[in-house]
């Protein structure tokens, strides 16, 4: 609970409808889409513009009260979860499209503007916004900047950082800076690059300028069913070895198919296939048909059972919904799930999936796999039931093992979901003390008192040593 004078000050800034401080109304803000850890905020503030954000932050910084930004709360690593009784600064009311410059292909939005709404708004003129996380119908561009969100099409088009050209940032002391440049190339140190993916630890973004792209002339989507996951994995490598850069290349395993087929996005996958691939090619109308044919050909070379090009937009849209709704559809087969976000070299896919299956058996917890196969970004979905004592911990432990496996084969612990609170321990597995120290010092330039989203992204040094020891001990067991 905040003291009443602080509540009064915040209310003066954002108006009475913009502050939630009654303890009975705060439970709904205990977590984002990562539910394994929760914490009650001290209050929730809903500012309407940059000036209000700056005033709120200044007020909290002066009082020494920690705070954190929140968009739609769809994050999967607990980045918006108040673990230290922070004041949640919800940017959900800052949801305007401020400016579109079609000639120069730029759009400026407030942070609470929903990702897919940008594409909807510019589509009539033939444009779209490329980063497309599965939650794009609801997640906000501010949150995308915080997490450096990816999506199915980042294989060809890159992730959020490749599309953000400028941002207005309220610093953790309430100061205001403009990073990047809407039209020019960045000069000096790339502070914008540092900001994207910093998970709200460097300040609060209040305006974002992004690139918008011309819609490709033609898009073809191929669905391929495989009896063996090895064949699907080899197909993915085969397509890329063939010189094709698909716009997207996604894979799902049988358990994920079962879950999503129970939802209204029913495709009707056969029960005896191990993997489905969804491959999209796009570009100039003249070449796309041939490209799709080549993709089909590669699938055939790898013992595909059935392969087909979407016959119309309705079918294509259903296939994509089936893929994009797969995470939450896990709710159909399990009361809770935890999604991991490891990245591995594409060529190690088969072997890593097999090891994950073994870990899953050992932990006696089901794991569904839905992932961006083209860029080796895995999303193992660990099914568990939080009502069974100890199972949340078992699931967390299984997740940790999977992430360490990714690191061990030369990959990383997150492709697009961020570190948040969830993967904070694994940061210590991935980075050396010196590297983490450097990151901490860099953060301190922006956020010297660690008031802005404290405890996220970069582990606090105190825990480093013991975890390192534990990790070393574990590594010596497994090798």
């Amino acid at each position, binding site marked *: 609970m905040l003291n009443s004078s602080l509540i009064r000050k915040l209310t003066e800034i954002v108006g009475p409808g913009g502050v*939630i401080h*009654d303890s*009975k*109304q705060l*439970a*709904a*803000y*205990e*977590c*984002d*889409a990562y*539910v394994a850890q929760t914490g009650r905020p001290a209050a*929730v503030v*809903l500012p309407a513009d940059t000036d209000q954000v700056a005033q709120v932050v200044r007020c909290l910084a002066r009082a020494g009260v920690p705070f954190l930004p929140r968009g*739609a*709360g*769809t994050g999967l690593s607990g980045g918006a979860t108040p673990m230290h009784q922070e004041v949640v600064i*919800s940017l*959900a*009311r800052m*949801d305007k499209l401020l400016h579109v410059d079609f000639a120069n292909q730029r759009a400026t939005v407030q942070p*609470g503007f*929903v990702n897919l709404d940008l594409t909807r708004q510019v589509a009539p003129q033939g444009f779209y916004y490329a980063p497309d996380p599965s*939650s794009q*119908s*609801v*997640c906000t561009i501010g949150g995308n900047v915080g997490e450096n969100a990816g999506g199915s099409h980042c294989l060809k088009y890159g992730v959020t950082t490749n599309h953000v050209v400028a941002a207005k940032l309220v610093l953790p002391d309430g100061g205001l800076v403009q990073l990047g440049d809407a039209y020019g190339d960045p000069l000096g140190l790339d502070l914008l690059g540092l900001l994207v993916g910093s998970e709200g630890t460097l300040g609060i973004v209040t305006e974002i300028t992004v690139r918008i792209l011309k819609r490709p002339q033609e898009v073809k989507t191929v669905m391929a069913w495989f009896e063996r996951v090895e064949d699907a994995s080899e197909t993915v490598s085969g397509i890329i070895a063939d010189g094709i850069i698909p716009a997207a290349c996604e894979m799902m395993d049988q358990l994920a198919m079962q879950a*999503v087929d*129970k*939802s*209204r*996005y*029913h495709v009707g996958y056969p029960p005896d296939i191990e993997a489905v691939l969804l491959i999209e090619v796009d570009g100039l109308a003249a070449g796309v048909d041939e490209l799709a044919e080549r993709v089909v050909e590669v699938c055939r070379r790898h013992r595909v059972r059935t392969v087909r090009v979407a016959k119309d937009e309705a079918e294509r849209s259903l296939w994509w919904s089936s893929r994009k*709704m*797969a*995470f*939450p*559809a*896990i*709710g*159909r087969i399990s*009361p*809770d*799930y935890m999604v991991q976000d490891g990245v591995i070299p594409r060529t190690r896919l088969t072997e890593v999936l097999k090891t994950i299956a073994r870990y899953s058996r050992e932990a006696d917890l089901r794991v569904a796999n839905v992932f961006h196969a083209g860029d080796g970004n895995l999303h193992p979905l660990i099914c568990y039931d939080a*009502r069974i004592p100890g199972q949340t911990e078992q699931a967390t432990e299984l997740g940790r093992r999977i992430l360490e496996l990714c690191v061990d084969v030369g990959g990383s612990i997150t492709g697009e979901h961020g570190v948040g609170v969830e993967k904070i321990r694994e940061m210590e597995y991935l980075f050396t003390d010196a590297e983490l120290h450097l990151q901490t010092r860099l953060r301190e330039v922006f956020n010297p008192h660690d008031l802005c989203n404290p405890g996220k992204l970069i582990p606090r040094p105190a825990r480093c040593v013991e975890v390192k020891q534990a990790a070393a001990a574990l590594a010596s067991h497994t090798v």
Partner: protein
Amino acid sequence: MSGTLSQPARETPMQADAPKTGAFAYPEPPDRDRYSACVHCGFCLEVCPTYQETSDENLSPRGRVYLIKQAAQGLLALDEGLQNPVFSCLDCRACESVCPSGVEVGALIEKARGQFHHKAEEEGVASPLTRLFLRGVFAHPRRLRALGRMLRLYQKSGLRAVAHGLRLLHVLPPHIREMEAVLPELSDPPALLKLPERIPTAGSGSRAAAPVTGALFTGCVMDLFFSDINQATARVLTRNGLTVVVPKTQVCCGALHVHAGDREQARALARQNIDAFLAAGADYVVVNAAGCGAALKEYPELFTGQPDLYAKAQAFARRVRDISEVLVEVGFQPPRGRIERTVTYHDACHLCHAQGIRSQPRQLLASIPGLKLVPLPDSERCCGSAGIYNLTHPDMANRLLERKLDDIPEAADAVVMGNPGCMLQIRLGVHRRQAGIDVLHTVQLLDESYRKEVIEC
């Protein structure tokens, strides 16, 4: 998937003897299996009208389900912290249409409201509105008819003009006063009284092989304000080869009671309707009010603890069809009378979200010669009517109504829908803006086209 129920009917009662957990100390608490299905992804936020308006997680489907879950675990009390989120919900079910996990938010909300209803009863603080209308009037067909007669007298006798002249209505809250201004003229007696108990088929018949019987559910609001639509429904059915029966002992569907948390009263009404309609032995129970249709289809939910009644409710629910649904199912005859108008179609929440009916009404409209159907942007967003929501939450209801009116394309000279609550609400909006467009039920246009055939041929 379109054309079927968004949720497959449950074959077995769920959680018949659920333990009374946490803050939910009364019978029929929100089901654990239902709130556990929510994985907190937030995909529902974008379609929730109250979240769109407030951006407050407390007023989102995910937030509401989370709070219900917390209360069930004893982490929150059954008090105002939960009450406002639960009662500010429109029960429009838009969230259910997008939920990848299939969380039945409506059922959770209704059961949570049931807990508050029990608590209010126990503490003797039930709201006068609930008591008067839900138990006092809607539960009693004769009183409802008496209310209708009074309203008719009021409108016809010149009393309305006197009341307006003397500004007598100013004692009422402004939103109710406004609603009074747009109440339709109650010219016809209720169809439930006027229609014969059995109406033989007219027309050349449907493509169905065997003779088909449809039992007409006349509804309360529909029959009170739009009895002509009930008449039109009967005509359209017989025109398409159905024999229509009108079970005279039918009562209010109980939807308003379920929405308000008064499950006991709803159950009593449901039992009477189930008996009345099963006795009629019709192939279909035909409904032209989306809210009633959804409630009738969900009757089994009221009897989860009673296997015999549950089975009976299921047998009943399986026969329930919206008028648009049944016409498409039997293969309706395309009408031939021309109607030269441009109309737009509003998806009533309890048709599209609760019953998954989207294509059928459009199919009917598209079959009318000369009629041009222009799309209504965001047609599945609630208009704010939501049962008695526009009376209990006028501010939010008005905001949603304004958005709905903003969306109506300029080219349209009528907005068409399948629910009387929406019709009253949108009439209010049209009246307020002096928009000069008609607010119609799908069946009215279809009936008009059929009737024109006779004249034209």
